[in-house]
C-alpha cells in the first residue's frame, strides 16, 4: 500500500468539498474493494475521504411500500433489518448472501453501487427493484446508473447518499457462486410488481448488471418457473473467464431466473 492522506469529514457536504480539492482522492465507504486494491498497489489514491462517521449517510427508513437505505448502511444491517425483512424480504435475504460475515459487517450499499463490480450482488437488486439512487447532486434511476465495467453515471466527486426501493408483490434473488471468490458467477433478481410488471436484474454475467427483458416479458405474461425455463439466452457479449464461458453464463441466467421465480412463489 502506498502512503495516503486520511480525512474524516463529518458531513456529506464537507466530504464533497474535500473530494473537489483532492483530484486523486477517493471516498472510503466500507473499504471491501478499495482497500484490497490499495494493498495490492493496484490503486494508489493520494487521499482517502472516510465516510464512516457521517451520520446522515447511514440508516434505514421505511414508509409503507417504500424503503430508503442510507449509502453507508452495512450489508449486515440490511440483512437483519426488521423493516426490510417485512417490506422487501428478498432484499434482506440478498444482503445476507453477500461475501462473508466480515464483508457484510464492513461493506456498504453505496460503496457497492459506486464501485459497480460486475459480479456484485446489489446491482441486480437495484435494477430489479427499480431503485432510485440519490446523490448529493441529483436522483438517478437504476436503469440509467450502470454504464459498464466499473463505470456508473456518477460524476467525479459525486457522492451516493441513499438508495430508495419500492416493494414488489414478491421477489427473490438466486446466485450461482464463483467457486473461488464466492462472488456471483451469475446472479438473478426477479421482482414481480403485479399487472404484468416484472423486472429481472442480472449480475455477474456482463460488464455491469443489466435487465433481461425477454424474461421480464415472459414472466409478465405468466409468473411461473416454466415461463422462463426454455428461454435460451444469447451468449454474445457475456463475460468470459476461467470459471465460466459466455455460453455457460447464458445457461445459468435461465436456470437462476427459473429458481428465483420458484423461490419467489414459495
Amino acid at each position, binding site marked *: 500500500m502506498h502512503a495516503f492522506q486520511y480525512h474524516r469529514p463529518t458531513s456529506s457536504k464537507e466530504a464533497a468539498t474535500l473530494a473537489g480539492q483532492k483530484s486523486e482522492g477517493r471516498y472510503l465507504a466500507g473499504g471491501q474493494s478499495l482497500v484490497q486494491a490499495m494493498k495490492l498497489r493496484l490503486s494508489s489514491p493520494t487521499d482517502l475521504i472516510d465516510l464512516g462517521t457521517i451520520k446522515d449517510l447511514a440508516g434505514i427508513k421505511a414508509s409503507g411500500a417504500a424503503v430508503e437505505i442510507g449509502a453507508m448502511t452495512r450489508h449486515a444491517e440490511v440483512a437483519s433489518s426488521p423493516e426490510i425483512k417485512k417490506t422487501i424480504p428478498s432484499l434482506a435475504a440478498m444482503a445476507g448472501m453477500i461475501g462473508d460475515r466480515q464483508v457484510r459487517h464492513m461493506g456498504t450499499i453505496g460503496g457497492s453501487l459506486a464501485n459497480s463490480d460486475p459480479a456484485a450482488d446489489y446491482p441486480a437488486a437495484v435494477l430489479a427493484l427499480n431503485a432510485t439512487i440519490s446523490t448529493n447532486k441529483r436522483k438517478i434511476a437504476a436503469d440509467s446508473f450502470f454504464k459498464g465495467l466499473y463505470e456508473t453515471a456518477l460524476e467525479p466527486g459525486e457522492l451516493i447518499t441513499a438508495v430508495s426501493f419500492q416493494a414488489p408483490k414478491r421477489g427473490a434473488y438466486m446466485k450461482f457462486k464463483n*467457486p473461488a471468490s464466492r462472488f456471483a458467477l451469475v446472479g438473478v433478481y426477479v421482482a414481480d410488481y403485479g399487472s404484468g410488471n416484472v423486472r429481472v436484474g442480472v449480475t455477474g454475467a456482463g460488464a455491469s448488471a443489466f435487465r433481461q427483458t425477454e424474461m421480464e416479458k415472459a414472466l409478465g405474461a405468466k409468473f411461473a418457473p416454466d415461463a422462463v425455463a426454455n428461454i435460451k439466452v444469447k451468449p454474445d457479449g457475456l463475460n468470459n473467464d476461467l470459471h465460466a464461458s459466455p455460453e455457460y453464463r447464458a445457461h445459468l441466467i435461465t436456470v437462476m431466473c427459473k429458481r428465483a421465480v420458484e423461490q419467489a412463489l414459495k
Partner: protein
Amino acid sequence: MTSSLIGARVPRKEDYRFLTGSGLYTDDVALPGQTYAAFVRSPHAHAVLRSVKTDKAKKAPGVIAVYTGPDLAAAKVGGLPCGWLITDVKGQPMKEPPFPALAQGKVRHVGERVAVVIAESAAQARDAAELIEVDYQALPAVVSAAQAKKGPALHDIAPDNTCYVWALGDKAAVDGAFAKAAHVTKLEFVNNRLIPNAIEPRSVNASYSRADDSYTVYVASQNPHVERLLMTAFVLGLPENKVRVVAPDVGGGFGSKIYLYAEDVVCTWAARQLARPVKWTADRSEAFLSDAHGRDHVTVAELALDKDGKFLAMRVRTTANLGAYLSTFASCIPTILYATLLAGQYTTPAIYCEVTAVFTNTAPVDAYRGAGRPEATYVVERLVETAAREMKIDAAQLRRKNFIRQFPYQTPVALCYDTGNYEATLDAAMKIADVAGFKDRREQSLRRGKLRGMGYACYIEACGIAPSNVAGSLGARAGLFEAGEIRVHPTGTVTVFTGSHAHGQGHETTFAQVVAERLGLSIEQVEVVHGDTSKILFGMGTYGSRSIAVGGTAIVKALDKIVAKGKKIAAHLLEAAEADIEYDKGVFKVAGTDKKKAFGEVAFAAYVPHNYPLDKLEPGLNENAFYDPTNFTFPAGSYVCEVEVDRETGDTQVVAFTAVDDFGKLINPMIVEGQVHGGLTQGIGQALTEGCAYDETGQLITGSLTDYCIPRASDVPMFKIDTRETPCTHNPLGVKGCGEAGAIGAPAAVMNAITDALGVKDLPMPATAQNVWRAMHRA
C-alpha cells in the same frame, strides 16, 4: 502405568500455543538492526533482460542496498542445486540448466527474481523496488507440458526443452501382453497443476555476526539441515559449522517448504554484505508466483486384461512439466516416486512407464502432498474403474480379482511391498459406505433432480523413501536416514531432539507419546525439540510421510541405547548381574526378585555418580541414533466416494466419503484422523476445485485466492474414516506414515464417482460446475 500411551488420543501439546497465537514463526523474529528485502519479479514469462537500472531505487528513502544477478555472479554465488540426478533412457545424465538466485540475462517465468532491494522498512523496500527500471525484450513462451517440445527453448543446454526421457519396466513383455489381451482400456488425461498455499507464506530472516563470522538463518522450512547443507555446500560456499539454520514454528508446508529457494540464498548472502539481518516474507501473490507448484502431468495410460478381467500389463506414457528450472527434488517426483507406484494394489505382471520431463515458462514444479504417488494412483485407479465399466464387471470385484495377497511382494516396477491386507480395507470401506444401499440413494437423488455416482480408489503409497544406498544408486544426492537424540535429565525428565520437522503434524505429541511410553514417564515429562541445526545433531526433515517411520525409529533406537545403559547402571545399584536386569516401562528389575530401581533413580545416579561404576561406565544418560530404513513403508487403503451432480448447473458435491486406511500401528489415532481429513480435503480439492491456470503467454490466471479455489469446509462432507492394521515388518514401531494418503487416494475416487454419475468415460480435473456441465452436454 497401566494404559498404553501408544494408540492413545492424547490432545496435542502444541495446540495451546497455536490456538492462542503464541507460536513463533519466522516473520515474528525481529532482530536488532533488522532490514527488509523486497524482490523485483519478472512480469514476463520469457524475456531477455536488456538492462536493469537501479539508480533511482538506490537513492530512495531508507534503501540500504540493491542487488541484481550480475552482483551475485561477481560474488560467485552459485545456482540452486537439484538433489536428484536422473539418468535417461540412453544412459545420459538429465539436463541441469543453471538456476541463478537472481536472473542472469534472461527470465523464464512470471515471478522470477530480477533484483532485490534491502531497506530499513518493508514498505520502503517495496516502494523502492517499484523504481527499478527493467528493460525486457519479450520472447515467445511455452507453458503446457504437451507443447513444450515444440516451444521456444528456455535453456541453451536443452534445445527441445527436454530435461530427460526416462523409463522403467520391461517394454517387450508389456507389448507382448497387450498383443494377446482380450480387452484394453485406454485413458488420456491431464493431472492438473496445483499451487500449495500453506497458510504461512515462505519467510526468511538471515543474520551475520562479524564477532564470530557466523550466520543464523531463520526460515520457514520443512528440513533445516538440508537447507543448510544445500546453501553452504552448493551455493554460498560457506563452512557448515558457521551456519545455523532454524525452522521455528512453520505454518504448513505440503512439500512447498522442502526446497532451497532463491530468496533464502539472497537474504543470507546480503546479510553478510551488510552485516545486518535481512528479512523477507512472501505475500500471497508472491507465494502463488514463486512457490514450487505440484503435479502437472499429461498422460496416456493403457491397461491390458484377459477375458476374465485379470490384469496382464500396464503401459503409461507421461509428460511431466517441471517448470522453468529444476527445483530441489523436481526430477525424482515424476520418476522414482511415480512410475514405481504403478502396480498399485494389484498383481499386474508387466508394467512399462516412460516419462518425458520438460521445461516450460512456468513456476518450478516439485513435490506437493503425495508427490508422484497421487499421479500414479490416479492412473491406476481411473484405469481399473474404467476397465470394470467397459467389461461390465463390478468395480470392487475386479479389484479383488487382482489384489496382491502374498507378501512380501516384488512388483515389476522395483518396489517390494512388505505387508498389507487390501481385502480387509476394501471390505471395511464397502460396509461403512453402505455400498449395498447405493442404488436406493441414487434413485432418491434422481427424484431431487440430482445425478448420483459412486467411485472407488484403492491406493498404495510408499513412505519413508529408503534405503540411502539404493536411493543413491537411483540418483539421490542426499542420504535418507533420520537422526534422533534422547537427553535424560538428572531428575528423570527427558528432552528429545529429532531431525524430523513438524509444521502441523503434531510431532511434539506423537514423538513424546513414544518416548513417555517406553520410559514410563508422563507425556508432560517429555519435551520434543526440532527445527534448529544448533540443537539437533542432524536431520533430513519431514516430507513423504517419513517422520514416524524414519524419525520415530531413530528415536526408538536411541531409547534402546538409553535402556541398555540404564540396565548397566541398575545392575550396579542393585548389585546384580546386568544379564539379570529386566526393563519394563520405566522400571529396572532383577529378574525373579522384587528388587527394582525406577527410571528416575537410574537417571539420577548417572548424573550424581557417587555410587556408580565409574571405572566401566561414563556418567550421564544421553544417547543418539541414526536410522536408515531397509525399505519403504507401504500404507494402503480403500476409499469410496459418492457425489451428487446438479443436472441443470453441473454443480457437484461430494455427499459421502469413506476412507479405510492401513497405516500400520497408530501412535495417536486423533492426530492420524486429522491428517486423513486434511489429506482427503486436499485430494477432493484437486478433483473438484483446484487448478492452476496460465494463459498461453505464461501469465498466471489463478494468481490469487479469488481465482484459485482451495476447498472450504463446506465443500467436503463429514468423512467416515476407519483403519485396519498390518504392522510394518521392518521398523520397531510397526508404523507406516499417514500424512499424504488422503491426497493420494481421493482424486481418483471422486473422479470415478463423477464419471459414474454422468455416464461418461472421462472429464478433466478440476471437475468444476462448468467442466461437469460441458461433459453433460457432450455426453
